[in-house]
């Protein structure tokens, strides 16, 4: 994935290295030029002081070494001269020894001339007239110590420049990290958004990013609005359909229709289908938008007694409703959803039971297990699949519209759980719900 930090790092590093290179190269060039200029003047002064030597007037063949600067006499000392008077053999400084230095037309040489022992010489030549004599003086200086120093200087600047480039990158990286810190919070908020814990981004953002966040919030608001509208629409439609359905049920039970049992039965089935669809869509709309806020969690100690009271009231004193097992303070699922699951299962159990229906809660390591037993006739093993898959009831005599198990399966499936039917040790049917614990991130 493209990293903004890496891109900026590379850009800054390249730019600062180029700047440092140019700076190093430029300063070395300027220094070189200034040094040559200065040394050229020195060479000219040397030449003029040689010309002024009175020995040249008297015996133009040689100069007494003792009157000269010591460096002109030490072999290959780096200070040289050559004096040509008319066509006489030239006078050479002793330091030149056997090396031939080439005079040059006038002034300072453009480049460096090769000298003895790999020396590079800066050469200056001047023409003078003294009396009738035509005198050409050439002075030279070994430039290698300066070249060597310039070389060292160049590397120093490069090194310093490199270090500064590195430092700049580090500083920039820190600045970017600080600058992008709101993005980390944004990411956390987006994660919460994904889990449904919030519906808007609230962290203040830098001016560059805030338009994006504002637009995102705007879109989120719009999505929530649309979601709410469609959920409310489904809920309103579903609930509004139930009254006409009730009217149709009442119409169907009129005596006139008893003469047409086929029509009556057909219509009755279609009405049941519509009712089932309505209930399923209502439940789906509820599940899609449910949020597990801590206040809406299922609290067994608090929520089970009213449910059991209700069931006792519905089924009368004939059926005993019991509740056993672990009772955690709070379970990480929505109160209404668990009430729907347990209400339907216990209600079914109550309808079929001979004398008792029993709910047992098991808090296990990976899942919560809720088991509902009854001492009724049970369901033969070959019919259990039909009951689960269609959510239909087998016996039309027992009141209720056979929607209970379908809704239970819908809710349990939504939470990644399972519903299984088996034989109860009370003798009847045992329905077991296994709900895996949500991931810690969700639970926390």
């Amino acid at each position, binding site marked *: 994935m493209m990293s903004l930090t890496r891109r900026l790092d590379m850009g800054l590093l390249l730019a600062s290295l180029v700047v440092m290179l140019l700076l190093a190269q430029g300063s070395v060039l300027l220094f070189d030029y200034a040094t040559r200029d200065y040394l050229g003047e020195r060479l000219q002064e040397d030449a003029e002081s040689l010309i002024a030597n009175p020995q040249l007037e008297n015996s133009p063949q040689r100069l007494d070494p003792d009157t000269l600067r010591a460096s002109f006499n030490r072999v290959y000392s780096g200070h040289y001269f050559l004096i040509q008077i008319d066509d006489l053999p030239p006078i050479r400084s002793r330091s030149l020894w056997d090396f031939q230095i080439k005079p040059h037309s006038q002034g300072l040489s453009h480049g460096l001339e090769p000298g003895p022992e790999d020396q590079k010489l800066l050469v200056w030549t001047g023409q003078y007239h003294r009396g009738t004599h035509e005198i050409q003086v050439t002075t030279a200086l070994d430039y290698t110590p300066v070249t060597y120093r310039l070389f060292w200087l160049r590397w120093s600047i490069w090194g310093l420049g490199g270090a500064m480039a590195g430092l700049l990158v580090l500083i920039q990286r820190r600045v970017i990290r600080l600058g992008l810190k709101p993005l980390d919070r944004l990411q956390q908020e987006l994660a919460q958004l994904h889990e449904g814990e919030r519906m808007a981004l609230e962290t203040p953002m830098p001016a560059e990013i805030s338009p994006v966040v504002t637009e995102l919030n705007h879109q989120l608001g719009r999505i929530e609005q649309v979601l709410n509208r469609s959920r409310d629409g489904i809920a309103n439609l*579903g*609930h*509004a359909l*139930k*009254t*006409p*359905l*009730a*009217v*149709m*049920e*009442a*119409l169907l*039970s009129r005596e006139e229709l008893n003469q047409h049992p086929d029509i009556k039965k057909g219509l009755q089935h279609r*009405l049941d289908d519509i*009712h089932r669809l309505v*209930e399923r869509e209502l439940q789906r709309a*509820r599940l899609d938008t449910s949020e597990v806020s801590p206040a809406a969690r299922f609290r067994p100690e608090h929520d089970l007694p*009213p*449910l059991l*009271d*209700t069931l006792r*009231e*519905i089924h*009368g004193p004939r059926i005993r409703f019991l509740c056993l097992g672990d009772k955690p303070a709070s379970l990480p699922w929505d*109160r*209404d959803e668990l*009430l*729907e699951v*347990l*209400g*339907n299962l216990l209600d079914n159990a109550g309808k079929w039971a001979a004398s008792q229906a029993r709910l047992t809660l098991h808090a296990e390591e990976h899942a919560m297990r809720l088991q509902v037993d009854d001492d009724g006739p049970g369901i033969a093993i070959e019919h259990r699949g039909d009951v689960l898959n269609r959510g239909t009831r087998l016996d039309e005599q027992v*009141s209720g519209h056979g929607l209970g198990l379908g809704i239970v399966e819908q809710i349990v499936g939504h939470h990644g759980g399972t519903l299984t039917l088996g034989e109860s040790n009370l003798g009847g049917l045992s329905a077991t719900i296994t709900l895996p614990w949500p991931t810690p991130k969700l639970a926390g």
Partner: protein
Amino acid sequence: MRLLLVEDNVPLADELNALFSRNGYAVDWYTDGRDAATMAVKEPYDVIVLDLGLPGRPGLSLLEEWREAGLDIPILILTARSSWSERITGLRAGADDYLPKPFHPDELILRLQALVRRRHGQRPSPTLAVAGVTLDENSQTAMRDSEGKAVSLTRAEFAIMRYLMHHPEHVIPKDRLLDHLYDSEHDRNPNVVEVHINHLRQKLGRSIIVTQRGQGYRFGGDSTT
């Protein structure tokens, strides 16, 4: 038996009116929760069928208000809200039963019968048996156990028998009988009650209903046992 129906959907209320009348209930029907609020306390109803989604006032607040005021008649909630949490809320607010829409009409009648029975301390069953007389609410027939022959009753006769049999130990004044047999818009002619009681005596024997002069009527039971 006087029934108060609070339901804002006219087609459903029409059907329910017909259904309740067929089953011997005298129905008063209100669509607005505010009207129902006062009527329930004013008139001597035997049972109330209440829709929760009402214009004017929500059904749940009506229910809470009635129970707070000490109204002690059975109330059945009829609602499109079918979830268990809503059912628990309704029952905790003081309802005696909760039937989600859509429902089968027979189931509604059975639930109403069971509610009324439970209120009078009788077992919830489709027949009412008191002092040797059995009243079948589904077929609207009465039978003296000593004769073993079921006799069909008209709607009004059935209603009178049921009311008297629900209060076998009491002497029921004619006014009170009228209150419980006819809805508030019905013409209350006391002579009509006498006519029905005479018919009942012809069908089931003179002693089936005892007249306490100046006080009212009392259920007599099967005098031969």
